[in-house]
């Protein structure tokens, strides 16, 4: 069961629309290394975690990723809001506007719609946790590319917060991987 909290984990108040930036940031909503993929990945992988630490951490990081999914959705919404169709077309966001208007759709920046092919749930905790470590680094990388293209502090601050969370998750997954490895080793010799 999940309960919704009617607030963002980090405030998003973008005063100036920037439709082109919306179509770039949206990649962290529904792209290959985005927050939806992250959440689905961890929440699907948690069932076969062999130790309670793993069930807890994957549930909790999977839940935090949903909060990030919501933050990125709010950014896309606010970046599109108030821009005229002409401004949208001139900014290069015309292709997105054609299919989705000012709506928020899970897609990669280059246009591929979200797919579960972005994630794996291997039924093997070592394989899954190694994927999770890579996923956090890839998401960090995406936030860094977005930060290089952003010039509005209202956009930069939440992107920096989200980038930092990837680093924390990477650290927690690394610790968990060692614990799971120790647990599996200890079982082998009994």
């Amino acid at each position, binding site marked *: 069961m999940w309960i919704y909290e009617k607030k963002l984990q980090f405030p998003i108040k973008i005063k100036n629309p920037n439709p082109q930036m919306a179509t770039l940031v949206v990649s962290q909503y529904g792209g290959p290394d985005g927050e939806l993929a992250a959440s689905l990945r961890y929440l699907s992988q948690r069932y076969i975690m062999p130790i309670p630490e793993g069930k807890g951490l994957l549930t909790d990081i999977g839940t935090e990723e949903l909060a990030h999914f919501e933050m990125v959705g709010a950014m896309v919404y606010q970046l599109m809001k108030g821009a005229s169709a002409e401004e949208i077309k001139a900014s290069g966001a015309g292709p997105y506007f054609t299919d989705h208007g000012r709506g928020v759709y899970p897609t990669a920046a280059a246009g591929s719609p979200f797919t579960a092919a972005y994630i794996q749930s291997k039924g093997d905790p070592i394989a899954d946790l190694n994927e999770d470590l890579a996923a956090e680094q890839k998401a960090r990388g995406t936030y860094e590319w977005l930060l290089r293209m952003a010039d509005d502090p209202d956009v930069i601050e939440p992107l920096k917060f989200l980038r930092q969370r990837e680093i924390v998750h990477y650290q927690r997954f690394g*610790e968990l991987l060692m614990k799971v490895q120790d647990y599996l080793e200890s079982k082998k010799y009994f």
Partner: protein
Amino acid sequence: MKINDRDQLLDEIRQLEFMAVELNLYLDNNPNDQRAVRDYNSFTKQLMAVKDEYQRRYGPLSNFGTALSQFPWAWINDPWPWDID
């Protein structure tokens, strides 16, 4: 943009909840760290108090039986989290 009382309370909630999230993730891997459990409980108590205060003044932060509602039903009231205000 001027910071109003509501935003200020929300920021307090966010800050306390951030501490709780960080300690929660750490404790998932380190359940026997007594000091961290104590800190987690302390931040959680403060968070619950600030949330109560916010909800008395501005309506429920969560649904499905986790917070009381004013009349009329206050859950649907603007602003929603993605609104700029």
